[in-house]
């Protein structure tokens, strides 16, 4: 860790604040409990943030939640649409994370192989 890296933190956090403003079409929730972290959830989240930024997608909000109780399926990512539809992806690695951004968030197409289920209006 050095100071130059840390200085980028403010810039990146600023991006994230900007990303959060206004009504968004999608809300992406990454599960970040102990098991999620151990499985690589933090890297999945940063990959998605970078990819969203790279593609200039502005209709997405990225959030984080605690343990959701499916430890063997971590890292898990839930995509919530403004209409109420939810898609949950399990065992997401960085490649799948990029795919979720490029397919689901950009084009509205679900990434079939990694989705584990859908539930309407369910938290």
């Amino acid at each position, binding site marked *: *860790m050095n*100071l130059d*890296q*840390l*200085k*980028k*933190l*403010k810039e*990146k*956090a*600023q991006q*994230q*604040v*900007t990303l*959060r403003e206004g009504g968004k079409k999608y809300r992406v929730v*990454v599960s*970040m*409990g*102990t*098991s999620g*972290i*151990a499985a690589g959830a*933090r*890297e999945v*989240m*940063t990959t998605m*943030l970078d990819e969203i930024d790279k593609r200039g997608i502005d209709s997405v909000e*990225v*959030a*984080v*939640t*605690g*343990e959701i*109780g499916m*430890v063997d399926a971590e890292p898990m990512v839930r995509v919530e649409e403004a209409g109420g539809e939810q898609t949950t992806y399990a065992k997401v690695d960085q490649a799948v994370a990029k795919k979720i951004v490029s397919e689901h968030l950009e084009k509205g197409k679900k990434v079939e192989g990694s989705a584990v289920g859908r539930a309407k209006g369910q938290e």
Partner: protein
Amino acid sequence: MFEELSLHVLDIAMNSLAAGAKRVEIAVVESQRHDFLILRVRDNGCGMDAATLARVLDQRTTSKKSRKKNIGLGLAMLRQTCEMCGGHFHVRSAPGQGTSVTASMRLGHVDRPPLGDLNSTILALCAANENVDVQLKYRTDKEAFQFSSQELHQQEGIKS
């Protein structure tokens, strides 16, 4: 076990958020001169009573036994890392008083995990709850760095 100390920081600070903290102060002090590394996560959440505190520090408390998943595992893992690396581990907490977790280790210890990507840890915490002030203080023998997520929000407010 986590490969990076910054993942431990994230794990512990997520507990702070679960405890309803409005402010999470993360301090990282690295001293080559004195050969130590200190991590501290302090929050103003609901805190724990003595019985809960004893339980979370007990490594034998597995997620299977406890009703609330995962209680015990995160802190126990960090404690193990500290003790393995010639350091100390301390948790101070009381109901309504918040919680303070302090972990120290020898900076030059061969088993000490790298600090890792502290930025991503802070970003994840900011994403977890925008109303919580996530603060970072990082210090070495020569330099220092400070960050506060609420300050960022205020700056944003002035701009718009």
